[in-house]
C-alpha cells in the first residue's frame, strides 16, 4: 500500500507465519479485539467463512437474515459499546445491501469496519458474476475505503481500517478483498496502525480558543449549551456535567446527544430540534451565548438558519474542522477532542448560577406540559398514546434501559419521553432517518451489552422493513425486547399529510398482518395490547422476561407529535398544536 502509516508491533504478536489471505483476515480481526461480527456468506467471501468456521470458539459470527441487518446490528454494537462494529458480506448484492447501514453510520459518525468479498482480480472490470464496483459505490458514504488484491496487503489494510474507523471523528470504512487475495498466501505479522501520514484525526485544542470561550461564558447572562453525540464519542460525559454544574448553564441535547447527561439532571432542559422541547427551541433565540458541543447544526436542529440564534454569540466545540462555520457562523471555534477541551474549559470557567434564566426554561416547560406532555403521558381519551407506553417502560426500567428506536412518530416520542440514567443509551438513526434500523441495531446492542436491558421501539411500518431479523433474535437467543407501536399508518408521513397536504393520505395507511403470530412463528413470546388497563401489566411482563419478548401496542391511529417546528420555519415558531 502506498500511504505511509505508523504501525506498532503488537505485544502478543504471533511470530511470522505463512497463512492464507482468508486466515489473515480472521486473525487480523482477532488482533483488533473483535469477538463478534455480523454478516452473510456468499461466493466471493466463502474462504473467509471457512476460516470463521475454524475459529468459531474465538470469534462469533452472527448470521443475520439480510446484509442490511448485519450493517445495522454492527452499528447497534458500536453505539452501545463505543467499540468498532464489524459487518461482512459477499460481493455484488451482498455488498450493495450493506450500503444503507454504511450511509447511516457515515452521517451518524459510527465506527464500522465492513469487509466485502470481491471477484478474483483478473475478472475485475469484466462484469463478472456478482461483480460490483463497491469501492466506487461506497466512496461517498465511507470515511475511507480500499480494495485489496494481494494477500500480503491484507493485514495492513485491516489495521488501517480499524484505526481510521475509530480515531478522530469516527465513521464507517470498507475493505473490499478479492477472492484470489483470500486464497493466496502471505507471511502474516499483525501490526496495529497508530497513524496515517496524511490524516490528522484530533486537532490540538488551543488555550487561546478556550480563553476566548471562557470569557464569553463568564460574562454571559443567558448562556445555553446544546450538546451532541461528540460528547459521547469523546467519552466526555463527566467533563460536560462538570462544566454545566460549575457555570450553572442550562443544557439541551440533540437527538444523538441524548443520555450523555441523565434526563433527571436539574440543568438538563431537554431536546432541541423539530420535535424537541418547547423551551430550548424557543430560548435558542433568546440566549446571549450559545455553546454548541460536538454537534453539527443539522437542519432538523436549526430550522431556518436565517433566524437561528442571530442574537447570540456562538461558541462551537468540535473535533472536525469542517463543521466549523459550515452551517452557523461561529464567534469562537474550539477544536479538539471534547474530553480534553471541556476539561480545559472547566478550569477557565467561573462558578456561577443563572437562576432567573433557568426559570424561563421552567416556565416554558409548564406551558409544554399543559398543552402537550400531559395529554401524551396521562391521556384521558379512550385511545392509547405512544407516550404512555414509554412512561410505563420508564417505570419498569427506572431509566436504566437502552432504548433503540426506529424512525417516525414513535422515535420522536421515544426520544422525548425516555428516562436515561446511563450514557450511550439512546440508539437511533438520527442523520439518515433509516426506517428498519431499530430491530437489527437492538440485536447488536444486546449482544454487545448482554447485561443491559435493550428495548426496541418500532413503528408498524419500519418493523416490516427488517422484520426478517426476528430469525436472528431467535437463533442467537438475543433477549431483545421489541415494542411495536401500531397506529396502522406510516404515522409521521401521515402527520405531514394532515398538516401540509390537506389530509390527502396518499399511501400511508397500512393493512397489517398478525404481528403476534409472526413473532410466535419465530418462537418469540408475544402479546398484544388494545386497552389501557392491560398496558402496565404487559410492559411489566415484557421487562421482567429473561428472554426476547414482542409487545404490540395498538395506539390511536391519527395522533400527532408536538411540539413541531415546521420544516424551514424558525425555532421561535415552534408549534404546540
Amino acid at each position, binding site marked *: 500500500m502506498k500511504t505511509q502509516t505508523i504501525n506498532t508491533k503488537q505485544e502478543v504478536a504471533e511470530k511470522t507465519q505463512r497463512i492464507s489471505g482468508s486466515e489473515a483476515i480472521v486473525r487480523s480481526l482477532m488482533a483488533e479485539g473483535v469477538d463478534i461480527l455480523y454478516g452473510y456468506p456468499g461466493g466471493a467471501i466463502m474462504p473467509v467463512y471457512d476460516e470463521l468456521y475454524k475459529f468459531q470458539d474465538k470469534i462469533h459470527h452472527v448470521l443475520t437474515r439480510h446484509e442490511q441487518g448485519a450493517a445495522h446490528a454492527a452499528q447497534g454494537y458500536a453505539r452501545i459499546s463505543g467499540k468498532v462494529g464489524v459487518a461482512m458480506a459477499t460481493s455484488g448484492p451482498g455488498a450493495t445491501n450493506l450500503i444503507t447501514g454504511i450511509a447511516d453510520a457515515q452521517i451518524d459518525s459510527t465506527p464500522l469496519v465492513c469487509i466485502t468479498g470481491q471477484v478474483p482480480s483478473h475478472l475485475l472490470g469484466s462484469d463478472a458474476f456478482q461483480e460490483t464496483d463497491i469501492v466506487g459505490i461506497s466512496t461517498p458514504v465511507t*470515511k475511507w475505503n480500499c480494495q485489496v488484491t494481494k494477500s500480503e496487503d491484507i493485514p495492513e489494510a485491516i489495521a488501517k481500517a480499524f484505526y481510521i474507523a475509530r480515531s478522530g471523528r469516527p465513521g464507517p470504512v470498507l475493505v473490499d478483498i478479492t477472492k484470489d487475495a483470500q486464497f493466496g498466501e502471505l507471511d502474516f505479522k499483525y501490526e496495529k496502525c497508530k497513524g496515517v501520514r496524511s490524516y490528522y484525526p484530533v486537532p490540538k485544542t488551543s488555550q487561546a480558543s478556550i480563553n476566548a470561550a471562557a470569557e464569553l461564558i463568564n460574562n454571559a447572562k443567558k448562556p445555553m449549551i446544546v450538546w451532541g453525540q461528540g460528547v459521547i464519542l469523546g467519552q466526555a460525559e463527566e467533563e460536560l456535567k462538570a462544566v454545566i454544574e460549575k457555570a450553572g448553564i442550562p443544557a439541551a441535547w440533540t437527538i444523538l446527544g441524548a443520555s450523555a447527561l441523565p434526563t433527571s439532571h436539574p440543568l438538563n432542559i431537554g431536546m432541541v430540534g423539530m420535535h424537541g422541547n418547547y423551551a430550548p427551541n424557543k430560548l435558542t433565540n433568546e440566549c446571549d451565548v450559545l455553546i454548541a458541543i460536538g454537534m453539527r447544526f443539522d437542519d432538523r436542529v436549526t430550522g431556518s438558519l436565517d433566524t437561528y440564534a442571530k442574537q447570540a454569540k456562538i461558541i462551537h466545540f468540535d473535533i472536525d*474542522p469542517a463543521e466549523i462555520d459550515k452551517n452557523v457562523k461561529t464567534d469562537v471555534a474550539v477544536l479538539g477532542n471534547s474530553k480534553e477541551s471541556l476539561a480545559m474549559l472547566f478550569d477557565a470557567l467561573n462558578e456561577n448560577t443563572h437562576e432567573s434564566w433557568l426559570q424561563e426554561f421552567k416556565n416554558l416547560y409548564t406551558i409544554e406540559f399543559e398543552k402537550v406532555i400531559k395529554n401524551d403521558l396521562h391521556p384521558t381519551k379512550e385511545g392509547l398514546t405512544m407516550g404512555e407506553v414509554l412512561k410505563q417502560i420508564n417505570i419498569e426500567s427506572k431509566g436504566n434501559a437502552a432504548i433503540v428506536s426506529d424512525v417516525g412518530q414513535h422515535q420522536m416520542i421515544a426520544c422525548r419521553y425516555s428516562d436515561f440514567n446511563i450514557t450511550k443509551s439512546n440508539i437511533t438513526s438520527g442523520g439518515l432517518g433509516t426506517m428498519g434500523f431499530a430491530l437489527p441495531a437492538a440485536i447488536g446492542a444486546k449482544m454487545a451489552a448482554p447485561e443491559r436491558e435493550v428495548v426496541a421501539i418500532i413503528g408498524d411500518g419500519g418493523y416490516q422493513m427488517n422484520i426478517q431479523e426476528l430469525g436472528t433474535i431467535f437463533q442467537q437467543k438475543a433477549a431483545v425486547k421489541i415494542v411495536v407501536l401500531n397506529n396502522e399508518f406510516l404515522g409521521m408521513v401521515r402527520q405531514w399529510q394532515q398538516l401540509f397536504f390537506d389530509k390527502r393520505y396518499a399511501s400511508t395507511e397500512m393493512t397489517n398482518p398478525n404481528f403476534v403470530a409472526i413473532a410466535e412463528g419465530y418462537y418469540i413470546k408475544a402479546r398484544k395490547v388494545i386497552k389501557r388497563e392491560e398496558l402496565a401489566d404487559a410492559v411489566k411482563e415484557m421487562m421482567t422476561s429473561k428472554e426476547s419478548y414482542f409487545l404490540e401496542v395498538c395506539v390511536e391511529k391519527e395522533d400527532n407529535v408536538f411540539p413541531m417546528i415546521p420544516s424551514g420555519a424558525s425555532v421561535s415558531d415552534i408549534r404546540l398544536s
Partner: protein
Amino acid sequence: MNEEIKSLTISVYTENNIGLLNRISAIFQRRHINIESLTTSQSEIDGVNRFVIVVNVTETNAIKIVKQIEKQVETIKAYCHTDEETIFTESCMFKIKSDLLFDEPQIQNIIKESDSNIVTVNKEFFVLEKSGRRNEIESLRRDLNVFGIMQFVRSGRIAVTKDEMKITEMLSAFNNQ
C-alpha cells in the same frame, strides 16, 4: 449577503491514491459546483500528488470545500487562492494543415507574435504549442481559426502560489512522531 463569485484556485496535496480523485470530485458534484478545470500531477515531493482545481465560487464556499477536501484521509493539505495570489498558466496545441504555412504568409507572423512554438512539421500538418493565460490562447485560436484548425486542445490551469505551502515540514513532523 450577496458575496462575490470569484475564480479561485484550490491546491491540494495528497497521497498517490487511486480512489481519491473520485472522493474529491464528489465534494464538488454534491454541491453542484462546476469544476472549471482540474489537473493532477506529481508535486515537488516524491510520492505526493498535487491537484490544481479551478472553480468559480464565493470565498466562503471555497473555504468550506477546502475543509471537506482536507477531511479526506488521504489529503495532506488543501489551500484556496485568488488569481492574484498565484502564478498560473494553461497550455494548448493546434494541429494545422502544412500547406497553410507556405500559402498564408500571415500565419508565420501570427506564430511569431504569439510566442508559440512549432512542435513538429510534416508534409500534411504541423503542430503548434503555446502556454499562457486564457485570453492569449483564445486570441491565438481566433486568429488561426480564420485559416482552419484541424484540431485544438487546451489543458487545465496549473498554478504555483506566491506564498509557501510547508508540506515538507508537515510530512517530516509525521515521520518524527
